[in-house]
């Protein structure tokens, strides 16, 4: 088995807020991220797939197809959007880096021709990233 990773970037705005809590509680837990006017990041997405190298093509996955799936399912939906207000999965789930990694996994799982999704890594910034491996 071999792993292959492809990167993509998207820029989006978000804020952290739990409607079940008071404003004070949101501000205590989420700090600056609770500003309801939102703020933004340049996210880097790393998608890792696992599979066997095809004897004829030498590929574990067709990179063009992987790039197209990532663009269609994730980058095209998230890029230059307000995640809380414009992306359906974050109408309820708070768009933390952890939840974005899980949401990207759900968007990509089963849609990559010929390879198995192994890991989704989302960098909110260079020094902070979340990984999801599809674990329950």
């Amino acid at each position: 088995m071999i792993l292959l990773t492809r990167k993509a970037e998207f820029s989006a705005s978000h804020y952290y807020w739990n409607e079940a809590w008071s404003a004070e509680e949101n501000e205590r837990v989420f700090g600056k991220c609770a500003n309801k006017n939102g703020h933004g990041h340049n996210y880097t997405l790393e998608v890792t797939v696992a599979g066997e190298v095809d004897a004829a093509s030498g590929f574990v996955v067709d990179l063009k197809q992987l790039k197209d799936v990532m663009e269609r399912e994730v980058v095209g939906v998230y890029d230059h959007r307000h995640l809380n207000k414009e992306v359906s999965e974050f109408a309820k789930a708070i768009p933390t880096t952890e939840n974005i990694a899980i949401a990207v996994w759900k968007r990509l799982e089963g849609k990559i021709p010929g390879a198995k999704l192994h890991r989704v890594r989302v960098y909110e910034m260079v020094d902070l990233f979340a990984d999801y491996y599809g674990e329950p």
Partner: protein
Amino acid sequence: MKAYLSRRYRLSASHRLNTGAFTEDQNRTVYGKCNNPHGHGHNYVIEVTVGGPVNAETGMICDLGDLDACVRKEVVDRFDHTNLNLDPLFQDRVPTTENLCMEAYRLLAGAFSNAELVRVRVEETGNNSFEYPVNGLFAER
């Protein structure tokens, strides 16, 4: 759903690789430039990974402020702008980055209980990095 969160911290420190188990010649041969008696330094990156279920109310594995405070107290403030050879942890072991990585893991494992400490990875330079422990999904990267 279990996810992993990684955060990178920076510290600068000096060290000298030298062991009483070797002769002066052996130390020079084994450690090369790193055996310079006056020491030398690095800008280290300490990458800390925690894992756990994502809390449904917060969307988080653990409070990032708590993690930051713990890593700063236990690791960054302890080693930043110091000579690693003088730290009590390195009286009986050489402050290689392997040993720094393992000691940072032990310090954090004993102090952080909000989430599972999965891994500590230390970059000594942009070309050298070390990880401990080697387990589970992270070892398959």
